[in-house]
């Protein structure tokens, strides 16, 4: 490598080959480009989702809002698992890895921990992250590694052609459950909050504005951010979210979460959220309660029981579904704390290889 000169040009006092490679590329390709447009994030690969799939809408939304984050394409990495949504990295002109089923959070963790300079994203689905990869998801969340996880929830297995998923409603009739599914679904937001997540949001694929808003907050969050995106599979589970998408019923059954605003929703603000008698939350008719009883949304509450209670308002048929950012709190990130431990160790110890090879107890044989 003939990169050492470039390193000095940039005043980077290091012989680390990673920094050297980055510096070399910058010196030949020009400074890092952060003034980008949506098309800059597109690749030459043909997008191969089924026509009408909700994934297209999400891809467009992500490509459109990314330029506003000011992250260079080469500094962004998208890691995915297996499933329809996991083809996402191929369509993004960033670094990417389409890995194996369920393991994307673990791969992203290794990358984010060893390269805190990168913006690391995980794209996953309900089967990928909640079934086969459930373990990695909860541990990524509790560690608070600096990664952003987009969980495309279509409540079905699409790529394997239509088996019920861990978010399918009880009684779901599919090829593998002709008499109806028996197991209770996960509520991904409840699960994430239970796993000590510091950022949890939910958005709808077709709601460009709401989706972009949640994605932006997630991207700016330091730590693990989980965004559940309701995504329509028009082949195997079409209309799964129609209750929330329909202009009439959508207003009735979605609860928009806006930090600092009272939780009032429904036609003419007829419904609201108040505290119940057991430390949780319940739905009430706005005209039946005193205005002071209506809960004002606070996404920054340290104690997660409020956000958890919010997530429990919805039923599996999607009535009373809060949409937006449930929880966004600041906590030290795993990658940063590890970097700090390395700094402390470097300041207190040395990296003298001879010293550790010898250890504490040596003897010398003389000639």
């Amino acid at each position: 490598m003939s990169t050492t000169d470039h390193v000095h040009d940039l005043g980077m006092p290091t012989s680390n080959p990673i920094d050297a490679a980055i510096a070399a590329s910058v010196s030949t390709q020009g400074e890092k480009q952060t003034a980008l447009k949506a098309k800059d994030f597109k690749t030459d690969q043909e997008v191969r989702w089924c026509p009408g799939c909700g994934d297209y809408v999400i891809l467009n939304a992500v490509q459109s809002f990314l330029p506003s984050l000011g992250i260079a394409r080469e500094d962004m990495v998208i890691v995915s698992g297996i499933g329809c949504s996991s083809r996402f990295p191929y369509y993004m002109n960033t670094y990417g890895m389409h890995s194996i089923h369920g393991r994307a959070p673990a791969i992203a963790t290794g990358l984010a921990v060893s390269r805190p300079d990168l913006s690391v994203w995980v794209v996953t689905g309900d089967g990928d992250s909640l079934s086969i990869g459930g373990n990695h998801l909860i541990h990524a969340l509790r560690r608070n590694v600096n990664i952003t996880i987009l969980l495309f929830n279509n409540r079905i297995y699409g790529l394997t052609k239509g088996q019920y998923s861990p978010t399918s409603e009880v009684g779901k009739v599919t090829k593998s459950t002709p008499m109806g599914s028996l197991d209770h679904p996960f509520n991904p937001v409840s699960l994430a909050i239970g796993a000590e997540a510091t950022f949890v949001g939910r958005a709808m694929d077709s709601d460009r504005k709401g989706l972009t808003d949640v994605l932006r907050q997630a991207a700016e969050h330091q730590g693990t951010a989980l965004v559940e995106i309701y995504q329509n599979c028009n082949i195997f589970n079409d209309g799964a979210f129609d209750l929330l998408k329909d202009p009439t019923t959508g207003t009735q059954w979605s609860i928009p979460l806006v930090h600092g605003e009272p939780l009032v929703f429904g036609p003419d603000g007829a419904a609201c959220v108040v505290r119940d008698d057991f430390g949780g939350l319940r739905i009430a008719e706005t005209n039946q309660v005193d205005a002071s009883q209506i809960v004002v949304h606070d996404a920054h509450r340290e104690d997660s029981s409020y956000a958890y209670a919010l997530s429990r308002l919805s039923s599996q048929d999607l009535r009373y579904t809060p949409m937006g950012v449930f929880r966004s709190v600041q906590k030290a990130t795993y990658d940063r704390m590890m970097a700090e431990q390395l700094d402390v160790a470097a300041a207190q110890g040395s990296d003298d290889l001879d010293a550790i090879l010898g250890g504490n107890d040596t003897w010398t044989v003389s000639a």
Partner: protein
Amino acid sequence: MTATDPAVTAGSSAPGGFVKSVVELDRVVIRLAGDSGDGMQLTGNRFTSETASFGNDLSTLPNFPAEIRAPTGTLPGVSSFQLHFADHDIMTPGDAPDVLVAMNPAALKANLADLPGGGLLIVDSDEFTPRNLAKVGYAANPLEDGSLESWQTVSVPLTSMTLDALADSGLGKKEAERSKNMFTLGLLSWMYHRPTEGTVRFLERQFRRKPEIAAANIAAFRAGYNYGETTEAFAVSYEIKPAPMAPGKYRNISGNQALSLGLVAAAKRSGLPLFLGAYPITPASDILHELSKHKAFGIRTFQAEDEIAGIASAIGASFGGALGVTTTSGPGVSLKSEALALAIMTELPLIVVDVQRGGPSTGLPTKTEQSDLLQAMFGRNGEAPLAVIAPRSPGDCFDAAIEAARIAITYRTPVMLLSDGYLANGAEPWAVPAAEDLPDLTGTVDFATEPNGEDGEFLPYLRDPETLARPWAIPGTAGMQHRIGGLEKADRTGNISYDPENHDFMTRTRQAKIDGIAASIGPTDVDDPTGDAKVAVIGWGSTYGPIGAGVRRVRRSGRQVAQIHLRHLNPFPADLGEVLARYDRVICPEMNLGQLALLLRAKYLVDVQSHTQVRGLPFRAAELAAVIQDVIDSTSGAPLAADPTGGGE
């Protein structure tokens, strides 16, 4: 005793007035056995350190149950530590002990059969209570019923003497009793003229926050030493002179320690940051522990939620330009299989350390075996070749780790490093290398920084014509954005490809890349001093010591035998087939049911004779010598026809 010429070299007058003699020996094998709570491993390690610093050559065999504290005083709870030390270079921990120290009836019962008649047996008589005897099924006390007459039995009240020595320590009985291992160590240290300062320093360091415990242990240690000096029970002490070793600096090192340091050295000598993703598993966890101490080297250790996350995180780190490592044992490798194949498909550098143990399933977690060779070779879906190497001794784990890094980085491939429980926990003196003399790996690190395509595009699967490695372009490098993954990739572009010709080509190319590593590893290392041996014995991994010791015996008997020991198991050295063809008979001892033998037979059509055992313990040199000798004696120089028994034992 195994002394060739036990010679009384000196006499000294003990304080009691009787004369104590000193006998010179050339080597001794001591086995310490007790309950898992008795601290036998610690005692053994301390005795080993004393012995190492004295300058003897040595080899150790810790042997302990998987249970942390099996019921006290029972046979399953017995833990032992065998140490072989000598005034010359030795290769094994010894076939059988010359001296057995049994801390309780269970330890006696579990180990007595291994002590040859006439051997020295030291027992803690305090522990031979009716209750303890009954626990292990002794109807009568063997110390009293004459059943130990074939051995030189010395019955010592180790527990009560420890309690006496600590009467003024302020410790309770239970706590004071725990120092009986140090009393025993003191006694042995006197018997074998071991230096004691190291142990005193160690105890002070170990218990620096509990000075009263440190003081008690040191007092017990000294009391044991003084007891040896004054008692009439031991009239003889033994001297084993330092072994002649090449000049230089030495330390005592276990395989797991050496392997860890090898990884640190590989990182330092390549300039790459080391990332270890690991899930705790016996007997590999000590590598995680050791590497976690070396954060000052920029080493990141990540205790993952499971084995899969261990390797997955390492793959992520490698994608980012780190030297990704994951450490585990056999069952962990099974869990990592799918991710290993991802690393093969994405062609990223990765080191997978498998410290093998008895299998299948949970098997024998604390016992050694080398039965993961075929899993390492083939244990994945699809045609999924990777490099496989193995260390031959505890100290050699250091060099093997550096070699694994060289291959992984140069060829952008996972490398499986097959250590085992015996190497991991066994120890030997190690000539400390100078950092500057270690291989310089900076040349192997060659991150791609410029597009390589004719039209200014980056082609992530355009290979180096010599190594067939694909470019390693790390995130953060401008203009090199690309996507990799587990789906089949088109040659050059790395785009998803389901094209039949492309898959055939890529499958063969991945294989050719691994096969091509042979060009970088040199010819087979053959030890055939006279050059006219008709029989060769071939092995891999930790059998090096026992095979080498067996070969020495055979040669001492006037017979010729060649020894071949493989570091590289995939690919094999390029000339291995030719080398094997030179011999009329080839014997392959393995601690499995013939896995290397299967590979050699398949690849070279050589009638390899497999000799196997899976007892969770290393081979005995004498047994291997007998096997080799039989083959030599039955070979009259002419190649035998194919063995009708299929090469079995």
